[in-house]
């Protein structure tokens, strides 16, 4: 049946791959990380998953994770393009 309403459907990347906005990329030092999960808790875009891997397709590079990490295990490194 043809839709009579202009409905938006949920989908991934509805605003494109926002990772391209980034100027600084978070790099995790897995040795220093104690897996407390604060970075994932504070990530506004839920770009950090349960195993604390950062989804660089969508990470906007705001740096909250690096700022809030109690072990300073995340460094913000300038993107080379």
């Amino acid at each position: 049946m043809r839709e009579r309403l202009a409905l938006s459907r949920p989908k991934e990347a509805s605003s494109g791959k926002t990772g391209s906005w980034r100027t600084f990329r978070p790099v995790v030092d897995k040795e220093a990380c104690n897996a407390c999960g604060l970075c994932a808790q504070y990530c506004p875009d839920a770009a950090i998953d349960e195993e604390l891997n950062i989804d660089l397709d969508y990470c906007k590079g705001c740096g909250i994770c690096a700022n809030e990490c109690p072990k300073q295990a995340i460094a913000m490194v300038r993107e080379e393009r």
Partner: protein
Amino acid sequence: MSGNRIAKLSLQLMTIIEERSVNNLSAIPKEEYLYKCTSACAGCSSSLCLRYVLKAAGPDSVLVVPACCTSVIQGMYPGTAMNVPVYNIAFAAAAACASGMSDAFATLGRETNVIVYAGDGGTVDIGIQALSGAFERGTNFLYICYDNEAYGNTGMQRSGSTPLGARTTTTPGGKPTAKKDLDRIVEAHNPPYMATACSAYPLDLYKKVKKALSIEGPKFIHILAPCPPGWRYPTEKTVEMGKLAVKTAQWILYEREFGKLTINGPSKAAMKKPAPLEDYIKSQGRFKNLSPEIFDLMRQQVEQNIQRLSREEAGVC
């Protein structure tokens, strides 16, 4: 021991266990109701708040969003990042729309959560009559105002919620008047539940949304949402800025259940010994070149708020 007393004690125990479990991360559901990724600015605290609001509300919820940042960040048609139904509506109509929706769900016998997620412009200025009307009618819904203290998505014009002395694009010399005290306006409607929250304390916010949705009637949560481009601070300081607002007692976290005020943990400590207000002011570009007289006024305002709330909590009014 009478059965009544046992029931009361077990209820208390349940609340304590629940509170403990909410304070650790594992109690928060893993599901995300925001698909990657909204087009919010980097370091946006509003999308951080929305994540936790939706985690607490679950999939059986409808969001009513008036014109605000959240209506802009959903994505481009025909896609949306929101994995719950969202009804985008005009600025002045959010609470009125939610009233109708809530009544319709009640008639159908459904227990869907109706949540209004509105910015400060759509709450404090333009949407206040609809908000007041819905609270007076006793609509069963939750109104959440995320407050970044200006009209964010149109380019940071002043709103009624902009604090004294803050520079916005329409108050380049600093706002001459104080912030409208929305919480006291809402309090005057005697809602069964109202609370303040801050984006820097997402677990506290989660707990408050959970509690609000378990209560019948109109509920209100006011979230302070620091905004990097508007408040002019680097994006990584979003959470730090929220914590500073609470630690300096500029923003006080409390809940009011059926008229009884409870000050929450982080603010209890801050009200006894607030961090210097300079820390909060100096770290934001919007308070640049603030005159000492305005600064004194701001400090007095903070002290007055602390006194008023601690008197109320102690039962002296």
